[in-house]
């Protein structure tokens, strides 16, 4: 409750400013530029058929984002694990991970369209490309940050690479991996919306709707679609934050309880 209160106050302020701006500063004839919050709610969320259209688009985009995120997670983990095995592998493969992050996705869109069509597959691929780097970078950082003394302990008792990876590196890297996953989850939602803009074959995702509504001057629906897309991003960010708290309760970034005893 304590954590919800400040966010609720900010929410109320934002709605108030929005209301003020659309009623005071925008001429009634130009109201489509900034519809009032209540008009958005009435048109986008309280009208059954409009809401169904938006939710269907949101469901498709969520499916695209989730598929892309799962693929990006698998590829990113394997990529980082391979790079963590030797410096020469890292030097060989890391520049390509950086390139994926830095190349403008718009430059790849025509190629993705040629190779994978203009439907679901290409939307998913866009998500993968956008979501991959945070997982690769964070996982590699986590795997590389293991306490050297613990590495020595494992080496002293004859642990091989697989044992070291499974029993030490991956558990130790889990907080970093989950941080990467949290960033990637938000990026995957952006990827799904961006993908919708360019790959418009098949059922419309929330990005398609965001593309279409302004062309029909359906501002209330546009705002509704943007709000839902933002809520999807928030929901996945919170979900992975929750998962991180569950999975890494032992980590310093989580609880900070008092010791159970003295020095004895």
């Amino acid at each position, binding site marked *: 409750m304590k954590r919800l209160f400040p966010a609720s106050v900010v929410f109320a302020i934002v709605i108030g400013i929005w209301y003020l701006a659309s009623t005071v500063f925008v001429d009634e004839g130009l109201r489509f530029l900034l519809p009032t919050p209540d008009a958005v709610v009435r048109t986008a969320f309280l009208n059954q058929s409009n809401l169904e259209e938006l939710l269907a688009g949101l469901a498709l985009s969520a499916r695209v984002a989730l598929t892309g995120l799962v693929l990006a997670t698998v590829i990113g983990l394997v990529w980082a694990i391979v790079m963590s095995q030797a410096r020469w592998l890292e030097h060989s493969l890391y520049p390509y991970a950086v390139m994926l992050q830095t190349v403008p996705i718009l430059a790849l869109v025509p190629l993705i369209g040629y190779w994978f069509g203009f439907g679901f597959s290409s939307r998913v691929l866009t998500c993968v490309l956008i979501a991959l780097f945070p997982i690769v970078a964070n996982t590699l950082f986590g795997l590389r940050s293991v306490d050297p003394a613990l590495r020595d302990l494992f080496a*002293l008792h004859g642990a091989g690479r697989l044992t070291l990876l499974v*029993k030490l590196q991956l558990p130790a890297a*889990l907080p970093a991996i989950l941080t990467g996953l949290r960033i990637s989850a938000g990026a995957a939602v952006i990827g799904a919306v961006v993908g919708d803009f360019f790959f418009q074959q098949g059922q419309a995702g929330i990005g398609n709707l965001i593309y279409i509504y302004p062309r029909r001057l359906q501002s209330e629906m546009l705002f509704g679609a943007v709000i839902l897309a933002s809520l999807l991003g928030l929901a996945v960010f919170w979900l992975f934050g929750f998962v991180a708290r569950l999975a890494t309760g032992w*980590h310093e970034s989580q609880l900070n309880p008092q010791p159970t005893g*003295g*020095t004895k």
Partner: protein
Amino acid sequence: MLTIEDLRLQYPNGTLAIDSISLHLKAGEFVAVVGPSGCGKSTLLRAAAGLLQPTSGTISRKTDDVGFVFQDPTLLPWRSVLRNVELVAELRGVSKADRRGMALAALEKVGLAEVAKHKPRTLSGGMRMRVSLARTLATQPSLMLFDEPFSAVDELTRGRLCDDLMALFAAEHFAGLLVTHSIAEAVYLGGRVLVMSGRPGRLLGEIEVPLDYPRKPSIRFDPAFAELTSRVYALLEGS
């Protein structure tokens, strides 16, 4: 149990850490190595464990059953205390049932059986160090190497942990090699104290500690103890 002959160890960056050190550790003997910070004590111990390869010289161990206690407790924070103590046995392929028994017995020895299910972060620094000791003791190694194991805890806890180690040494009869920068700790625990110079580490001399085991904590206030620490200090100062 452990023989080091004419050990010389140079790091890839050219730093000469150890220059010509020889030592012999017999079964059931406890030897302490004392020296200033950066003299290569930890390097010596890591080489003795086989974690570093000598540039020249030889290291021979009569056993592969080597226990190593690090400066920090080096526990896995995601595992319970019990599963941390099982770790060494687990890495050596001991069955789950057997290693559980070994771990519980080791925790009994260090007086921490009641916190077996706790996570390490809920324990104090001294308790974590005891868990680390238990992990090393669980497989009952015949050679134990201690790398300034109590340097991360406060003075009072450090003294208590030394007393615990003394009791464990008396009960378990392992051969122990301890490196430390504490002269009192070296004299209290060691049957012999080897004194190292600053970098590159060389042996300046060796002082016999003719005090019977098990030594009581009160021996620290004995005039003979004070005389021995003075001799070690004088040798170190001479360096």
